[in-house]
């Protein structure tokens, strides 16, 4: 960033521990190590049942990626309802790349990320002067436009309204006599789980780098008051664009992996507004503008969702609506805020900070 004047945050940056980035990265390494070891641990503990536990873990990690990447945009005060667009763009670019060219399968994820980031650059550049509700509405409309464009492309490219298929990333082979049937499913899930964890680690690193650099203050300034930020020498448009492009790159990659895992893309499913809903409810529940909040909430919510899906087949998202409304009304700072409140109750409360 080439901000000339020292970046002044309207809100004093409190709550950052001395250790800063180094401490955070050490914690991340520990967290990642636990996740990498998780499949083997589950396997030795639960045997065959570990396959479905691993599926649940994949869902949780995917949700964490979705939530944390959305939070990065929210840090600049933008309510993005276009997450489904970038997710879908990633999924479709992976599908189209593999369908039309002989590209190696592992190229699909970076390509998907880049396509989604470029799309974000276009949307961001067009809308960078919009703020508040105007941006929210424009981003929601953008999602539908992208979906309609994908639908109306020739059948030989995107498969129109039907969609198209993708090869799986992992094809474990069943060897009779050496392994049991369920181990094939286990190996497949393990492969995907590790890829998801890789994307999550990348997301966390990006988030931590933002939180420990001047970008954190720039984002906060833009969020708190765009005009004041501009006066202080923080370029609101540029910062919003940085957040938007980074976030979309991540979610584009996630879209690609999920498309491989599901085996197909389809306009209605891939661009479903559910993706956007999940992306925004999770960080709000966990605690906006934090790295830990969205990840924590993803764990809690994916467990909750699994239970609810069995009870309410069609309308399980109602739980997300309730969580959203309750969080906004009763704990606008999420689980992290709640936790902080409980631990710092004895000390003096720092009034005046208003993160929204």
């Amino acid at each position, binding site marked *: 960033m080439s901000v000339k004047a020292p970046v002044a945050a309207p809100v004093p940056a409190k709550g950052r521990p001395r250790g800063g980035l180094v401490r955070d990265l050490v914690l991340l390494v520990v967290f990642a190590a636990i996740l990498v070891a998780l499949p083997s641990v589950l396997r030795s503990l639960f045997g065959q049942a570990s396959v479905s536990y691993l599926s649940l873990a994949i869902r949780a990690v995917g949700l964490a990626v979705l939530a944390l990447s959305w939070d990065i945009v*929210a840090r600049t005060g933008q309510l993005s309802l276009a997450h489904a667009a970038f997710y879908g763009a990633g999924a479709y670019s992976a599908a189209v790349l593999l369908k039309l060219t002989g590209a190696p399968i592992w190229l699909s994820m970076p390509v998907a990320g880049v396509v989604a980031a470029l799309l974000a650059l276009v949307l961001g550049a067009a*809308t960078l002067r919009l703020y508040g509700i105007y941006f929210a509405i424009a981003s929601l409309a953008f999602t*539908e436009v992208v979906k309609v464009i994908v639908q109306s492309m020739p059948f030989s490219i995107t498969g129109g309204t039907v969609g198209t298929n993708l090869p799986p990333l992992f094809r474990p082979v069943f060897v009779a006599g050496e392994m049991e049937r369920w181990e094939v499913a286990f190996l497949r899930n393990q492969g995907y789980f590790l890829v998801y964890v890789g994307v999550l680690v990348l997301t966390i690193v990006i988030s931590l780098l933002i939180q420990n650099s001047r970008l954190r203050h720039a984002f906060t300034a833009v969020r708190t008051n765009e005009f004041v930020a501009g006066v202080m020498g923080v370029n609101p448009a540029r910062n919003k664009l940085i957040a938007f492009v980074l976030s979309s790159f991540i979610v584009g990659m996630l879209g690609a992996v999920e498309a491989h895992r599901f085996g197909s893309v389809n306009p209605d499913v891939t661009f479903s507004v559910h993706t956007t809903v999940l992306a925004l409810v999770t960080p709000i529940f966990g605690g906006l503008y934090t790295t830990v909040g969205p990840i924590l909430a993803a764990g809690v919510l994916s467990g909750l969702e699994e239970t609810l899906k069995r009870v309410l087949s069609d309308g399980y998202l109602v739980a997300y*609506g*309730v969580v959203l409304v309750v969080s*906004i009304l009763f704990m606008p700072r999420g689980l992290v805020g709640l936790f902080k409140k409980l631990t710092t109750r004895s000390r003096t409360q720092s009034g005046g900070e208003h993160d929204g």
Partner: protein
Amino acid sequence: MDLSLLPQALISGVLAAGLYALVSVGLALAIGVIGIVNFAHGEFFMVGAFFAYQLFVSFGFDPLLSILFVAPALFLIGALLYQTTIRFVLKAPELNQMLLTFGIGIILQNLALSIWGGDPRSIGAVPYRAVGIQLGNVSIGLVPLGSFVISVLLVGGLYYVLARTPIGRAMRAVAQNRIGAGLVGLEVNRVYLIAFALSALLAGIGGVMIAVIQSPTPTIGLAFTLKAFAIVVLAGLGNIRGIVTASLLVAVSESLVATLLPNGDSLRNAVFFAIIFATLVYRSWRKL
């Protein structure tokens, strides 16, 4: 392109504009008076449609009759939601307000999904559904015509209320200056409550009509939220008077695209989103 379809497309567009105006004017009321950007507005519309459907299935109520039940029901739902949730975020950051209404929308939509399932439902068996008037090569269905007339009456009624009645004056006063209105003795919170409930009521009546015109599913709400936003944004946020013109513009262009372009029906929705997007981007670049 078949130009002989032009008159038909224009008429259909104008008739559809009535319903759009009815739904959008409610949203404009919520935005203009209360300052709440209601992402759940289309869900009120959807709830209205499914209430009418249920009244028809359970008791055989004619949709015209069910308006008399759906309207107060939606008014109550709106009032209840305002009293239990919206009221508390009036002074909160805009992000929180939008997220709250988005959450309410998710709840309503998924409640409807778990009650009625995801299949399209319609009130198909009303005797006048297939009746129409033939004028040359233009045919006008009785149902679209009826919904147009009802919408015009309701939107006109709202304009009258805003212009001439005490509560309308109060709403305009609160919209202009909340503190000032409070200082001269208006019960601001009560005015907000009525405005929000009225906004839900108007959307609900629109929903009753869509249940006869189309076969809605519980997910129809979001599309109508977006359509209403397109119109409200085109009219200028908070501008209630511009809604009629904006509705005509949007509905007629939608109808023209759907009728005249090859493969137009699938592009129908794209018209709305393109309009929203273009208007927003154009305004943002002109303003600065």
